[in-house]
C-alpha cells in the first residue's frame, strides 16, 4: 500500500507523537500507524520530537514542546504480555495548558499491532476534533488483476488486507451488514449476476438471490433486518426487499425503467436509488415500502450511486458530465450540489461512519485505485494497492 496525500485542512492541529518506550520495535510500529492516520486525515500537522523522547508525564518538560510549536503530545510505553497480547499505555498531553487529556491502556491480540495504533489514533482524533475517529474501521473493495477478481477487506488505511473471495468471474457491489459481521455482494460465478452473503467470521457463504437475469446491488437496512436488492426476474431492474434469510421477498419500486443502487436512509424509512425513469440516469428518493418517488438530481449530465451521509442530511453520489465523473454531495434541505473532486474516473463514493471522509474508486497512472476526500473537499488521498485495479470500495460500520 502506497499512500499520497493532496491538500490540507483549513486548520491543522500541531501534534507530536513520541515513539513509545518499552518494546522499542513495537513502539516504533505503533508510532508509525498513529502518525500516518493523523496525517492522512488532513486535520493534523506532525511536529518532529527532535530527539526528545519522554515516556511518562514526569519526563515531560512542557517548555521543550511549546518551543516546537506543538499543541498536543502523545507519549507512552508498550510491551508484549505473557498471554501474547500487546498492551500500550498511552497519554495525550495538552502542551499549552500542561494537562493530561487522555490516559489509557489499549491492548490487542498478538499480531494486531496496527489495531492498537488505529485505536490510539482514534482516541487522539476524537479528543482533539470532537468527532468520532474512523481509523479503526474497515473497508471492503474488489481488486481486479487480469481475469482474477478478489474481494478484499482491509483496515481503513488499506493495510492488513484479507482476501474474502477470489475467483475468475467478476465480483461487484460489496455491502457491509450494520454489525460488520457479513458482506453481501454480487458474484458472476454461476454465469450471471447473483447476490451472495458471506460471514467474515466463518467465511460461510450462501446465495441470497439467484433469479433469472440479473440479481444485484445489495444494501442492508440500518437495523440489519432487511436487505434491498435489485432483480430483473419480473422484467426490468426493480428494487425488492427481503430478509437476510431470503424470506419475505417483495417488490417496492414500479414502472418500466431501470431502478437500481438502493441505499437506506439512516432511520431506515426511505431509499435513495438511481433510475432512468425520467429519460436519463438520476438520483431519486422514495419511502422504503414504495410510493411516490421524488427526483433529487437535475440539470445537465447523469448521476449514479447515491449514499446517505451518516447524519441523513445529505447524500454523496457520482455525477457524469462532459465525459468526467465527479464525486458530489447534495444537501437535502437546500438541494445544493457540491462537487468535491476535479473530475476524472471517479465512482462509487461511500461515507466513513463519522461522515468526515468519503472513500471512492479512482484512477491514477493507469490503475484503479482507492481514494478519499474529506467531506469539505479540502484533503484528498490516493491509496495504491500492491497490484491490479482496486474498485467498488465501501466503508465498513463504526467499531
Amino acid at each position, binding site marked *: 500500500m502506497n499512500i499520497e496525500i493532496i491538500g490540507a485542512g483549513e486548520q491543522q492541529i500541531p501534534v507530536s507523537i513520541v515513539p513509545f518506550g518499552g518494546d522499542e520495535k513495537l513502539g516504533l510500529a505503533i508510532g508509525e500507524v498513529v502518525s500516518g492516520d493523523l496525517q492522512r486525515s488532513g486535520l493534523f500537522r506532525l511536529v518532529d520530537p527532535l530527539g526528545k523522547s519522554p515516556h511518562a508525564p514526569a519526563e515531560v518538560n512542557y517548555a521543550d514542546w511549546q518551543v516546537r510549536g506543538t499543541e498536543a503530545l502523545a507519549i507512552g510505553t508498550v510491551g508484549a504480555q505473557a498471554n501474547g497480547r500487546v498492551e500500550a499505555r498511552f497519554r495525550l498531553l495538552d502542551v499549552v495548558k500542561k494537562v493530561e487529556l487522555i490516559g489509557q491502556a489499549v491492548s490487542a491480540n498478538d499480531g494486531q499491532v496496527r489495531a492498537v495504533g488505529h485505536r490510539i489514533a482514534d482516541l487522539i482524533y476524537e479528543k482533539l476534533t470532537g468527532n468520532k475517529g474512523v481509523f479503526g474501521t474497515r473497508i471492503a473493495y474488489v481488486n481486479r488483476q487480469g481475469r482474477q477478481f478478489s474481494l478484499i477487506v482491509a483496515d481503513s488505511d488499506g493495510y492488513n488486507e484479507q482476501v474474502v473471495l477470489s475467483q475468475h468471474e467478476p465480483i461487484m457491489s460489496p455491502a457491509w451488514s450494520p454489525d460488520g459481521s457479513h458482506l453481501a455482494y454480487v458474484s458472476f460465478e454461476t454465469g450471471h449476476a447473483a447476490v451472495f452473503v458471506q460471514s467474515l467470521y466463518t467465511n460461510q457463504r450462501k446465495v441470497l438471490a439467484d433469479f*433469472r437475469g440479473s440479481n444485484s446491488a445489495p444494501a442492508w437496512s440500518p437495523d440489519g433486518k432487511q436487505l434491498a436488492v435489485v432483480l*430483473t426476474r419480473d422484467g426490468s431492474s426493480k428494487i425488492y426487499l427481503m430478509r437476510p434469510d431470503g424470506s419475505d421477498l417483495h417488490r417496492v419500486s414500479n414502472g418500466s425503467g*431501470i431502478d437500481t443502487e438502493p441505499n437506506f436512509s439512516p432511520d431506515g424509512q426511505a431509499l435513495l436509488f438511481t433510475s432512468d425513469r425520467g429519460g436519463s440516469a438520476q438520483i431519486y428518493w422514495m419511502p422504503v415500502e414504495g410510493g411516490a418517488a421524488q427526483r433529487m438530481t437535475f440539470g445537465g449530465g447523469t448521476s449514479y450511486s447515491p449514499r446517505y451521509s451518516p447524519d441523513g442530511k445529505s447524500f454523496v453520489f*457520482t455525477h457524469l458530465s462532459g465525459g468526467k465523473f465527479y464525486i458530489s454531495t447534495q444537501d437535502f434541505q437546500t438541494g445544493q450540489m457540491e462537487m468535491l473532486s476535479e473530475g476524472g474516473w471517479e465512482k462509487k463514493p461511500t461515507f466513513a461512519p463519522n461522515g468526515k471522509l468519503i472513500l471512492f474508486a479512482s484512477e491514477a497512472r493507469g490503475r484503479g485505485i482507492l481514494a478519499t476526500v474529506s467531506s469539505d473537499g479540502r484533503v484528498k488521498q490516493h491509496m495504491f494497492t500492491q497490484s491490479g485495479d482496486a474498485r467498488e470500495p465501501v466503508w465498513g460500520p463504526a467499531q
Partner: protein
Amino acid sequence: MKKIVISIVLLNLLAACASQKPQETAATPASSPVAAAPAVAMASSAQTYDDALNDPQSILAKRSVYYPFDVSEVQDADKPVVQAHGAYLSKNPARTVRLEGNCDERGSNEYNLALGQRRADGVKKMLELGGAKSAQLDSVSYGEEKPVGSTHDEASWAKNRRTDINYAK
C-alpha cells in the same frame, strides 16, 4: 400480426440465399473478421453447409449487435441479424442461445448491469417475435465487467456496447 409474418418470410428467403453463397467464397478469400471459418471455406471449392450457422458468409455469422451510448433498443442496422437468428432458432428448436449484454464503462457498474440486461432482454424479445421459443433463450448481463476494449475512448466503448448471441455447443 401481419407484419411479423412478412418479415419471417423475408428471412427465410435470406437464409436460402445465404446457404448458396459458400461457392463464391472460394474465389474471394474472406477478409471479414470471422476468424475461424475461412481456411475451411478455401479448402473446398464447392462447400455447402448442412447448418447455415456454420457458414461464414451467412448473416448468421454475425453474433453481436451494437448500440449507441445508454441505448438498449436494437438499431435498424442490426435488426436483420437478430431477425435471421430468430428465424434460425424457430427452424432449429433444439438450438439454444445465451444473450449477453455488455456496456461501456460510462455510468455506474450497477446501472450498466441493468442496462446490459435490458439490451440482452431486448434481443431476446426480438428473437421471440421471430419465432424462437423462450426456452431456447437465456439473457444475462455483464454490465461493464467484461470489456473487450479497455481504453477510455470511443474506440473501446463502441466495441463494449454490445449484445452477444452465443449458441450453446
